[in-house]
């Protein structure tokens, strides 16, 4: 068995697989810029360094997007898997094609990501002028002043050893998700890092489609309901809506009843105690607050079912009256259901001191009961 041939050395070339020394902030910013379809100009001190930087950014592009390469595409980029090479054609015709693609995105077509190799001035003047997202221009040895002259004002700059990325749109303020992925994969192979990035990006896209389907149904959709069903935390929830807006120009926030700050405060207060594994709050049948504190499998719908049975019982002669408390102690967990003005459901760890928990809870419930919480519908 022969040894694989040694890779020939090239001056100024940084093999893609080497861990780059840029900080976490820079990496996270670059990932966010690509994910949010920020317009950008990528430049490097020499042509040899532009390709590695471009390959890094390419690895951040979600695989479900259609990558279009145009301009003077370097040969290293021509045969990238999943990228389509656009033959040189009249700029206006290309621009029209991009605009049609962007319009089709509103109806669910795969979002495009255009990577243009060439002069930024010509590109923004002839090609990208009216296109407000999803393109990057790669051009070595371009000073900042030249970019500012030919494009809209620069909103940010990301520095890498290979070059710089000038952002023409502002980055999102919160890069927690991007940093989290990159942090988790420090020291991992590029393949694993790419897998984690792609998995998150695909999850976000699929979650948006699920939320869209829910809103199309005309039913009341609450943030809590989505958090439980899609198993997403708050930051991911906001990322889903932001990316959906960037990819499909659809702002779904007006169609979703977000969790009221008082309810968030209530659930956060409980998170500091040890007893609770899960908490849910309902107004009628709408889930208006949901928090999972520990790993427990208990659909909130169960609280509703139990609550309905109790309410049916309360109509009879042996009914408990209002407010009522129901406690079920099992081997695996304790379930606490409280009907005050709202319906509160909690799962406590087996053996937890439920009396102490109820005592601590009383004050919080009284406080919340004083607030006007509107129906989630």
């Amino acid at each position: 068995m022969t040894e694989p041939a040694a890779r020939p050395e090239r001056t100024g070339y940084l093999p893609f697989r080497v861990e780059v020394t840029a900080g976490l902030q820079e990496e996270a910013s670059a990932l966010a810029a690509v994910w949010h379809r920020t317009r950008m100009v990528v430049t490097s001190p020499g042509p040899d360094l532009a390709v590695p930087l471009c390959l890094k950014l390419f690895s951040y592009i979600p695989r479900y997007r259609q990558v279009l390469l145009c301009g003077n595409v370097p040969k290293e980029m021509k045969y990238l898997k999943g990228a389509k090479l656009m033959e040189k054609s009249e700029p206006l015709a290309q621009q029209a094609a991009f605009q049609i693609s962007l319009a089709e995105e509103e109806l669910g077509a795969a979002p495009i990501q255009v990577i243009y190799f060439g002069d930024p001035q010509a590109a923004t003047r002839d090609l990208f002028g009216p296109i407000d997202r999803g393109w990057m221009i790669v051009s070595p040895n371009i000073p900042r002043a030249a970019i500012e002259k030919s494009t809209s004002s620069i909103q940010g700059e990301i520095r890498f050893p290979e070059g710089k990325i000038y952002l023409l749109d502002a980055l999102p303020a919160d890069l927690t998700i991007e940093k989290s992925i990159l942090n988790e994969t420090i020291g991992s192979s590029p393949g694993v890092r790419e897998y984690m990035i792609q998995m998150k990006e695909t999850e976000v896209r699929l979650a948006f489609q699920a939320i869209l389907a829910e809103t199309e149904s005309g039913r009341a959709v609450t943030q809590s309901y989505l958090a439980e069903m899609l198993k997403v935390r708050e930051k991911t929830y906001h990322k889903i809506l932001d990316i959906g807006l960037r990819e499909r120009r659809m702002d779904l926030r007006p169609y979703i009843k977000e969790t009221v700050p008082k309810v968030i405060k209530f659930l956060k207060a409980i998170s500091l105690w040890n007893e609770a594994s899960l908490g849910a709050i309902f107004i009628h049948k709408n889930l208006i607050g949901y928090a999972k504190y520990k790993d427990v499998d208990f659909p909130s719908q169960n609280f509703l079912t139990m609550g309905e049975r109790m309410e049916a019982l309360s109509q009879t002669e042996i009914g408990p009256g209002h407010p009522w408390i129901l406690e079920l102690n099992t081997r695996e967990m304790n379930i606490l259901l409280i009907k005050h003005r709202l319906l509160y459901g909690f799962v406590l760890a087996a053996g937890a001191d439920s009396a102490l928990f109820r005592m601590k809870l009383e004050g919080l419930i009284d406080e919340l009961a004083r607030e006007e919480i509107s129906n989630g519908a």
Partner: protein
Amino acid sequence: MDEIKNIIQGIMKRVPGIKGLILLDIDGIPLEIAGNFEMRAEDLGALLAACYNSYAQVGVELGQNLDMIIVEYGDLKLCQSAMPRGLLTIIATKESYLGLIRLEAKRAIEMIGRLMQDTKDLRKSMMEQHKFRMPGDQDIEMILAKLRKGLT
């Protein structure tokens, strides 16, 4: 009817670029209209229903159900969606986002469909109130001829 009116008006207020909405019974009788139209409501309803039925017939030949028609004019977009017993047509500016219009159309169809269990009574009251009559093929031809005459 008030609830349907509220749904329609809500869409008009919420979505930028929407110029009008027309809710039709399956025979083309307008049940609710929002926005300004120069044509008579009855004529507009008849034309929209006839267009929709033509494409639905094509769908039948192809073995497909017709869900939605999207038409792009010079400065306007028109989106027509099927309902169990009616049609919802949304007219918007060219710059409007189709994705959002489709979302609103689908939500409205769900909500209005639940409200419109049976449009017979509604149709009867609309016809009496506005002195509508059921459009026939000859009526459609007359309307089209009038339009052609107006355009030349």
